[in-house]
């Protein structure tokens, strides 16, 4: 089911003024830009942690934020899954407990949904483990399962590969890209890594200094880079 995410937000995030508009369809969309460009702040505005001064956030047929109409759906009712950079697994719960956290229903139903989601991500064997006992790649899979188990309408991932050891990053990246494409869920992935852009094959939105400077497929960006950052990014030399 395609739930289009439409973002047009204007607001302040610390010293930065964010003025970002783009839309994302089912499948991965990459949010790219230098450090401090406002990528994470944009995610926070989509999630509802930061309140834009004006603008609109729509997801499918739901309006999550509309400054003009005074609509601001609270964070816990937006149904947007989130995978933070360091995964933030609940250390006091086992893997099933983590994944079941966002599932509604009876204890048995929640546990079953959690186990099903883990199985879909080839992580069924991790069910009874503690987060402290997982490798980086396993933590990422559990964090993804936790975000997906509650059947969100969209998924946001903040540099999902940055916390991983370089030796496993390529494998984890390939598996994650495959899953995100297969899930056909609207997914926004923050990255500043060209290899991520290559693996996920989605449209790319480039943000610099709080504003969108270019959008397009990797091939478009490569053929017609509009800024110095994009020029360096497509050559694999972004910071």
């Amino acid at each position, binding site marked *: 089911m395609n739930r289009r995410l439409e973002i047009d937000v204007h607001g302040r995030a610390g010293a930065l003024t964010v003025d970002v508009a783009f839309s994302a369809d089912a499948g991965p969309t990459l949010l790219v830009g230098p450090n401090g460009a406002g990528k994470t702040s944009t995610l926070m505005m989509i999630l509802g942690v930061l309140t834009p001064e004006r603008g609109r956030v729509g997801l499918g047929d739901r309006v999550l934020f509309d400054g003009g109409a005074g609509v601001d759906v609270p*964070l816990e009712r937006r149904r947007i899954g989130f995978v933070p950079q360091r995964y933030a697994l*609940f250390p006091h719960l086992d893997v099933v407990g983590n994944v079941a956290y966002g599932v509604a229903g009876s204890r048995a139903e929640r546990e079953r949904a959690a186990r099903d989601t883990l199985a879909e991500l080839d992580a069924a064997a991790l069910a009874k483990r503690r987060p402290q006992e997982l490798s980086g790649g396993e933590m990422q899979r559990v964090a993804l399962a936790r975000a997906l188990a*509650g059947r969100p309408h969209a998924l946001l991932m903040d540099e999902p590969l940055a916390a991983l050891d370089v030796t496993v990053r390529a494998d984890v990246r390939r598996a994650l890209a495959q899953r995100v494409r297969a899930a056909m869920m609207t997914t926004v992935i923050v990255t500043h890594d060209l290899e991520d852009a290559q693996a996920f094959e989605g449209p790319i939105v480039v943000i610099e200094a709080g504003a969108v400077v270019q959008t397009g497929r990797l091939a478009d960006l490569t053929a017609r880079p509009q800024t110095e950052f994009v020029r360096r990014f497509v050559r694999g030399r972004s910071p």
Partner: protein
Amino acid sequence: MSAGTPPRERRNGLAAIAWPAALGLLSGLLLLLVLLPVAGLLFTSSPGRLLRGLADPLVGPAVRLTVATTVASVVVIVACGTPLAWVLARRRHRLWRVLETVIELPVVLPPAVAGVALLLAFGRRGLLGPTLGALGIGLPFSTAAVVLAQSFVAAPFYVQAAIAAFRRLDADLVLVARTLGASWPRVFFTVALPLSWPALAGGAALSWARALGEFGATLMFAGNLGGRTQTLPLAIYTALESDLQTAQSLSIILVVVAFALLVAIRAGVRR
């Protein structure tokens, strides 16, 4: 200094001896100051005489009252202090910081001042005196006054520990829980509390230890009435006037309990 000559190594024999000597002497003095009185408490009597000291009619009611009032105080402190700490830990505005400092005040306040302050708030002529009087409540010189005095002086120890614990919570955990549909109460009970309880327990133990030793504010605000407001520290003070043995026996009880609490808190911190 001329080039080529290595700097002369100065061997200062006096400094080599004076430094460790000074360290040892000064540290030793302070250690003695703490250890000697404890040794005095523990070793100047015999087990038989200590037990006889506990036979004094002061002892039973004071022990019972102390257990009841300190437990009540810790319950009050934890029940009200946990929500307060949660609120203070999550606010960044300067006014909340001021409030955080105000909550700390009883730590540095002389107990006598605390007693006067409590009287001026809850006493017959205090701020709330007329209101309480109209309701038929007379707080001063009641057991409730003991709990109030203990809570007043002991609360900051718990609140401070709880604020620190809640601030240490990974903000991403709270954020993720919220994106998963958790309301604030659910975040509090399923994420914040389970991850913070060791620190909260440590703070509660510290508070309890402080409540256990409460003397000055209790004496001034609640008085020294056997069975009603005479807690162990006040019973020791009273016993001192007639029977040193009883005072010593009670003191040893408090030393043992306090030391056990200290060990438990330190073990909790290490965990």
